């Protein structure tokens, strides 16, 4: 049941085609629906890993990407300064996401129900290189401080 719910939360944004089409991120929804929401900076670029505890039925699959982030500010629930996040390799479709060293990102994740990994997708992140992401960051700050 947990796995089904997990898959539903993430597959909801997945398109039929390989290209990834994402709904616009909303601060209220992120804080309500995601396990963790942070502003973070990538500590090195994403690396390809083999997830030993996973099988191909898992949404990410055995081949994933691992990225280490330093948390700049915690909007929801990480409670730690460094986080390791798993994503799909972008070339495999399925809204994979790859990060480069030094990129600053509004990052939301779901906790994997059995492996407890922090999982993200291209539809769950927003790069802080535009005013739209800046406004999202301000909304997250405002709402999280009220809660």
């Amino acid at each position, binding site marked *: 049941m947990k796995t089904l719910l997990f898959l539903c939360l993430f597959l909801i944004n997945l398109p039929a085609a390989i290209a990834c089409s994402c709904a616009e991120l909303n601060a209220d929804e992120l804080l309500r629906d995601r396990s963790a929401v942070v502003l973070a900076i990538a500590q090195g670029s994403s690396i390809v890993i083999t997830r030993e505890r996973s099988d191909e039925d898992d949404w990410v699959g055995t081949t994933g990407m691992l990225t280490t982030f330093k948390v700049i*500010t915690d909007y929801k629930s990480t409670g730690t300064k460094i986080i390791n996040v798993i994503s799909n390799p972008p070339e495999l479709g399925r809204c994979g996401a790859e990060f480069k060293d030094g990129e600053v990102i509004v990052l939301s994740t779901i906790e994997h129900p059995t492996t407890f990994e922090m999982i993200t997708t291209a539809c769950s992140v927003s790069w802080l290189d535009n005013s739209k992401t800046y406004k999202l960051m*301000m909304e997250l700050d405002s709402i999280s401080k009220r809660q």
Partner: protein
Amino acid sequence: MKILLTMCLLVSSTVSIACSCALQTAESMLRDADLVFLGIAKSDSQAFQRSIDDDWLGGTAMSTPFEVIADYKNTGFGEVNVISPVDYGANCGIEFKKQDGVVLVTASKNPVTNEMVTSSCSVTWLNTPATYNLLMELEALNSLEE
């Protein structure tokens, strides 16, 4: 005694070589600078020859185009070009790279050339909670002024 004197000179020369910066607050940034923005370098800084060379920048300086993410004071455009001294260490020069990430920049207008000039003391990278808090203060002060 000679060794002691030499050591003292070395210490003082190290201090003079390093660029020492005063702590900036959101209030001082908005009060003292002509331009305050959060941005990202669109390309690496490029050296160029200036039309004058008798000010502190000298005849050669660095030019960097920035994409403005948030305008706290006076950019008014989606893109702004900022001038900085070539980085020799002691002169508080700075050179930016496209992959440097998100940076909070303050700049002052050169009254003669109208160039927007920054230095290593006038920029802070968004990679720590302290810089994040500074952004929040800038945003709050801007909201109060509107």
